[in-house]
């Protein structure tokens, strides 16, 4: 009975806030918000928006960030899989990179900034021996006006996401035989992959690529840490307007949110155009009969890019940890002169409240998301109908609509109903983003379950509920906990939903960390960012160790 409610409930909880939020953005953008005296429709706010200094540049940087991040990260992932699928190198990289998915974007961005800044780790490692620098050079590397360091930071963080999504889709394609066939026709490894494997693979990961475009073109936290400041990318300026105490700014901010929606949509439309050009180019190359047999250099380059991007995040995180324990640390020393827990002691009292909120919201939204996902999957078993393309689109919807475009409208609705900055409102906002990841993580292992076990249990006279509780759920414990750990990590990393729906009164580790970005106290930032990274790690440790402990005498339950 209960599972019947799963799919409709999931649809309402995923699309409801998005549609309501979009409406709540759309109406004020055109001047309609009776609570603030806006009763007539007007285009004035757009005119005002377009008159803002640097607005075109902001929009362009956002557009470019979406397209460049998606193109580079997808290109590296595609070439890497093309060159190395089925090899040990690939599975090693996969193991190296998987944990990076759980690192919150803000923590990764801080780590990256600490690495590449003029006074960062990389510059310290080569100074003064190679560069001769005795003091940090006066270069604008982080926050460069073109947004290059922001895009680089986004690329290293999106590579793990795209790689894992692509590898999850790969088993459905007969890689070995396709490769043998294309090799027998004289094609190089990568060319064979591009012609034979890539088209069906890309079709399956396309929504994830769109999600990368949408995210990168509208990201706030990474842009605030690594992005340009004069002018800042559109989404960062938006948040500034949205939190302006002047109430009439809300019309203006709504118009900005609508512009953000258009920029993201435009980025995806341009991408679809690029897809057609790419396909035409591929077919042209095929028709010319080019084989590209000497492609090892390209495969090695892709492998190197993979390794470098993973190492960049790891090194950044290590640098963060170092800073949080650093005493005096002068340039160009590669290590601090001394280590101290001062920064930790000093921030400890201030951390307690945000930490409690972080854990509470993450736990509640994850529990809800796991329960809802399980209901949907159980319902799928009952009806025998696998969630189709439309359902997959619904699941991806929260990742395809720019957060700023609907969260602001949602905030206005919560303000109107007096529920803004309440725990339920914040949990709901997090749930919208946690649910897709939990579903994507849990769906495949759930469907891979050998349902003959359930037939055996039914034959033994066990009811459906008893079979679920005593056979299916225990056997799936590990997958469920991993899904929960993914959801937990996603909730920990949420910046914009927390800022807008928490309305500055509900703070989490992530919002506190990003708020510190402009201050530049590396020790304190180190503490917050380190915690931000540590919490998901604890989640995954529990998800791995708990089943291992419970089933320590059950060999077949090990991975």
């Amino acid at each position, binding site marked *: 009975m209960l599972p019947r409610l799963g799919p409709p409930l999931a649809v309402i909880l995923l699309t409801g806030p998005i549609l309501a939020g979009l409406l709540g953005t759309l109406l004020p953008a055109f001047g309609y918000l009776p609570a603030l005296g806006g009763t007539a429709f007007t285009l004035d706010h757009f005119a005002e928006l377009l008159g803002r200094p640097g607005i075109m540049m902001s929009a362009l940087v956002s557009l470019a960030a979406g397209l460049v991040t998606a193109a580079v990260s997808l290109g590296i992932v595609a070439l890497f899989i093309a060159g190395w699928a089925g090899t040990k190198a690939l599975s090693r990289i996969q193991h190296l990179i998987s944990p990076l998915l759980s690192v919150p974007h803000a923590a990764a961005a801080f780590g990256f900034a600490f690495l590449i800044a003029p006074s960062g780790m990389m510059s310290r490692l080569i100074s003064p021996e190679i560069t001769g620098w005795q003091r940090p050079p006066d270069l604008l590397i982080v926050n460069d006006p073109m947004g290059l360091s922001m895009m680089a930071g986004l690329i290293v963080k999106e590579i793990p996401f795209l790689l894992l999504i692509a590898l999850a889709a790969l088993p459905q394609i007969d890689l070995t035989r396709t490769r043998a066939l294309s090799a027998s026709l004289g094609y190089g490894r990568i060319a064979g992959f591009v012609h034979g494997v890539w088209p069906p693979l890309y079709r399956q990961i396309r929504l994830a690529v769109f999600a990368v475009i949408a995210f990168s073109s509208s990201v706030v936290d990474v842009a605030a840490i690594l992005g340009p400041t004069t002018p800042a990318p559109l989404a960062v300026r938006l948040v500034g307007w949205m939190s302006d105490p002047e109430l009439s700014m809300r019309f203006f901010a709504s118009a900005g949110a609508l512009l953000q929606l258009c920029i993201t949509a435009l980025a995806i439309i341009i991408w679809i155009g690029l897809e057609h050009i790419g396909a035409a180019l591929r077919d042209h190359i095929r028709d010319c009969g080019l084989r590209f047999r000497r492609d090892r250099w390209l495969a090695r380059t892709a492998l190197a890019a993979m390794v470098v991007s993973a190492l960049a995040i790891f090194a950044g995180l290590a640098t963060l940890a170092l800073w949080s324990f650093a005493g005096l640390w002068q340039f160009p020393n590669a290590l601090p002169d001394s280590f101290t827990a001062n920064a930790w002691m000093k921030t400890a009292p201030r951390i307690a409240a945000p930490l409690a909120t972080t854990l509470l919201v993450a736990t509640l939204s994850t529990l809800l998301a796991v329960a809802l996902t399980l209901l949907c999957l159980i319902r799928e078993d009952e009806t025998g109908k696998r969630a189709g393309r439309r359902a997959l689109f619904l699941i991806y919807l929260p990742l395809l609509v720019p957060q700023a475009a609907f969260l602001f409208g949602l905030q206005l609705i919560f303000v109107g109903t007096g529920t803004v900055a309440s725990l339920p409102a914040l949990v709901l906002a997090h749930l919208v983003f946690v649910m897709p990841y939990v579903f994507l993580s849990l769906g495949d292992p759930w469907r891979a379950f050998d349902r*003959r076990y359930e*037939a*055996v249990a039914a*034959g033994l*006279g066990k*009811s459906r509920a008893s079979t679920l509780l005593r056979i299916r759920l225990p056997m799936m414990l590990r997958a469920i906990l991993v899904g929960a750990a993914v959801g937990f990590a996603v909730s920990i990393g949420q910046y914009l939903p927390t800022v807008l729906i928490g309305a500055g009164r509900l703070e989490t580790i992530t919002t506190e960390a990003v708020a510190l970005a402009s201050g530049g106290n590396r020790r304190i930032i180190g503490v917050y960012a380190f915690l931000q990274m540590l919490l998901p790690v604890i989640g995954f440790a529990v998800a791995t160790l708990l089943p291992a402990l419970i089933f320590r005498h059950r*060999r077949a339950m090990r991975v």
Partner: protein
Amino acid sequence: MAENGLFLDDVSIALNGHRLVALAHSVAPGEVLTVMGPSGSGKSTLLAYIGGFLAPAFEASGKVFSDGLELTALPAEDRHVGILFQDPLLFPHMSVGGNLIFAIPASVKGKAARYALAEAALEGVGLAGMAARDPDTLSGGQKARVALARALLSAPRMLLLDEPFSKLDAELRGQMRELVFAKARDSALPVVLVTHDAADAEAAGGSIVRIGNAQ
């Protein structure tokens, strides 16, 4: 209509309008009905229909009776069919004993009584004292015997065998066949055996129905 045993009353199963199985047959207690057909002929769907776990994609009609009781009117868990697949499918998160105790009907009260029953069942398949073992540490033949003991412990109305011997090596296969059919005779259970191995059918000794291309 046969009062005793299993009666398949014009059972017909189709997929996308294509008929896989059409069968009317009765199986007396202790007897074996062998359904033969090549792989992919849909012979396993017959067992799924009798057991009540046919996937919704199939269209099926006809009734199944056991000792005069209409099984097709009951949910799967009230049909009490002991089923053995190609794989033993011991629940990997339970001990061998846990697997057996899980199968014992709730009407058997008291922990001690249930333990004793499980231990006796293990002894009955030549695995005395193995209750505490992790199922994954057993050999293939031992697992198959635990699966048989588990099915018998649930006090089933019949046994449904879905090529249960096909993954065992030749010597074990013979032993296992004898054990299964002997147990079914002892407990007076009707058996439906689905197989593509003529030797299985011969050992079963009952009537044989061919479906699919073999018809």
